């Protein structure tokens, strides 16, 4: 008798099975969001001493229950907030800030180190608006820092921060950290929230 080869298994339906699994995973996949705005809460302190801050060094932002914005006692649209915050921070009224490019208006903030943004919201304010305002204020700081970083190191601040976090970045991290801290010192983020 002639030797017979075993018949080959038909693999035509393999694709169907694989497709079935593929569709299952496609449907169940949820890409988790893992980015956001980082903030630090002030620690609980029972100290009663009041720090005296000059009125001109405070930039008040008020958000009411109807999501309207009151900046320095004037109604303002959300889209103008970033520019207004930048102007306030970059004012340099007392002339001690050599890198400021503001108007040096004596009625506005003395220097970026003293300038404080105060944000107050009501219980009825929606979270969406609150985040939008936070975002604009953080953006104002970031833009000023970016500008300063470009002047000093020909690199944007966000790029430097990304490099610092990147494990594969080839440069000297200690030096980079120094540079980042220098810029953070020149434009410190002073954002206080009133409860």
């Amino acid at each position, binding site marked *: 008798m002639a030797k017979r080869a075993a018949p080959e298994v038909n*693999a*035509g339906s*393999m*694709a169907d099975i*694989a*497709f079935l*699994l*593929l569709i299952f*995973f*496609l449907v*169940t*996949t*949820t*890409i*988790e*969001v*893992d*980015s*956001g*705005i*980082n*903030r*630090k*809460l*002030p*620690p*609980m302190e029972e100290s009663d001493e009041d720090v005296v801050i000059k009125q001109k060094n405070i930039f008040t932002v008020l*958000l009411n229950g109807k999501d309207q914005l009151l900046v320095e006692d004037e109604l303002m649209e*959300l*889209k103008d907030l970033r520019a207004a915050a930048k102007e306030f921070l970059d004012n340099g009224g007392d002339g001690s800030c050599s890198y400021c490019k503001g108007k040096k208006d004596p009625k506005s903030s003395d220097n970026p180190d003293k300038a404080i943004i105060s944000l107050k*919201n*009501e*219980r*009825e*304010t*929606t*979270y*969406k608006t*609150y*985040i*939008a305002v*936070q*975002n*604009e204020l*953080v*953006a104002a700081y*970031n833009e000023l820092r970016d500008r300063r970083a470009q002047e000093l190191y020909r690199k944007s601040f966000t790029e430097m921060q990304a490099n610092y*976090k990147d494990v594969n970045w080839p440069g000297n991290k200690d030096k980079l950290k120094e540079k980042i801290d220098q810029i953070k010192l020149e434009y410190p983020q002073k954002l206080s929230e009133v*409860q």
Partner: protein
Amino acid sequence: MSKFKKKKSGALPAISTASLPDIVFMLLFFFMVATVMRENTLMIENNLPFADQVEKLDKKDLVMYIYAGKPSENFKQYGTEARIQLNDKLADVSDIAAFIAAERAAKREELVPFLTTALKVDSDANMGLIGDIKQELRKVNALKINYTTKKGSVFGR
């Protein structure tokens, strides 16, 4: 003799689909690897707001998640006001302290100072609830927080 000769057809031969399973398997493996199974089943609506000045949360295991929002369709019995969700159940503001303590106890001691609280809050929730959460977090000294947002313009598309 030539009676049984096969007729030669002029049509093109069919394209071999033998490599189709390989391609599909490749896609399948990609999705299997990229899939992250949800840790918590959400009982609330969680439509995150948009922002563009975002930073990435890098260490996933050092993040504690607090969800908040309106109870979703299936959980209508809990009312229409925004609620907090911790792990798998709806909670009260007063439960946050215990939740943070439990999360801290589960981590190695030297990692505790690096713990971040991620607030995943529905964009329609109101700030009263968030204020309460923040106050509670300050009480237990969990000061590093992150408002989780989607990446996009704040002014809407």
